[in-house]
């Protein structure tokens, strides 16, 4: 698999959540995603960027246009150095929240993409990687 294009943006404030969505929308349009695919990956990005701000104390989003043979897709990494998540399987459950959210951020965004990976541990921050193929 090859990365043909990528960039990083800081995710520190509520305003950056909007910037993240706009960036993802633009790249998704550039690589020819249909409107439903665009909406799904942008919504997933919005949820994960908000997690980065609210629970991760800020971090960054790296986006990558990826190619695997004839397949083309968009991969997003959300990385923070926040407190991390102790119980990952519980955090992936609908309705589970450590804060004031609805508890749909992780579980919901997983349903909106083709691939979802999460790596987190207390004191080590959190890294979430999602991919949606065209």
């Amino acid at each position, binding site marked *: 698999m090859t990365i043909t294009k990528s960039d990083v943006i800081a995710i520190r404030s*509520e*305003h950056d*959540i*909007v910037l993240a*969505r*706009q960036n993802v*929308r633009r790249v998704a349009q550039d690589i020819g995603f249909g*409107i*439903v695919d*665009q*909406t*799904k990956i*942008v*919504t997933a990005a*919005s*949820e994960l960027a*908000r997690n980065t701000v609210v629970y991760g104390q800020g971090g960054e989003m790296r986006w990558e246009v990826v190619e695997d043979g004839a397949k083309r897709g968009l991969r997003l990494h959300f990385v923070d150095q926040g407190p991390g998540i102790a119980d990952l399987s519980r955090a992936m459950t*609908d309705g589970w929240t450590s804060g004031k*959210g*609805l508890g*749909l*951020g992780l*579980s*919901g*965004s997983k*349903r*909106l993409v083709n691939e979802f990976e999460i790596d987190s541990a207390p004191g080590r921050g959190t890294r979430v990687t999602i991919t949606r193929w065209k």
Partner: protein
Amino acid sequence: MDRIPILRMGDFLLVTIQVDMHDRLARTLQDDLTEKIERTGAKGVLIDISALELVDSYIGRMIANTSAMARILDAQTVVVGMRPAVAITLVELGLSLSGVDTALTVERGMQRLRTRLGRTDSADDHHQE
């Protein structure tokens, strides 16, 4: 600070969301709307989201909360114009907005509000005391 305008038409309030809302703007709209319902005694609220390209769990929750708060304040809310891609995404995300009344267009939304309030005449020439 930016705000989303709330228009008054008789005893209906009309909100058209035309920007990609950051979270604080969504919270401000929720507060402004409930305050305006209380101040004007509005009986119906129409929220037009046809320009919105995204409704995530935060905005979805704001819409559901606003509708619930309005109901407690004796006003009916109808959310109109949700784009199909947004509806598909919302349901997959896990939010079905089950307590929220929706209509496809502003016109149908208005009709719905009038029916629910037991009216056949137009909203702006109807005053009750």
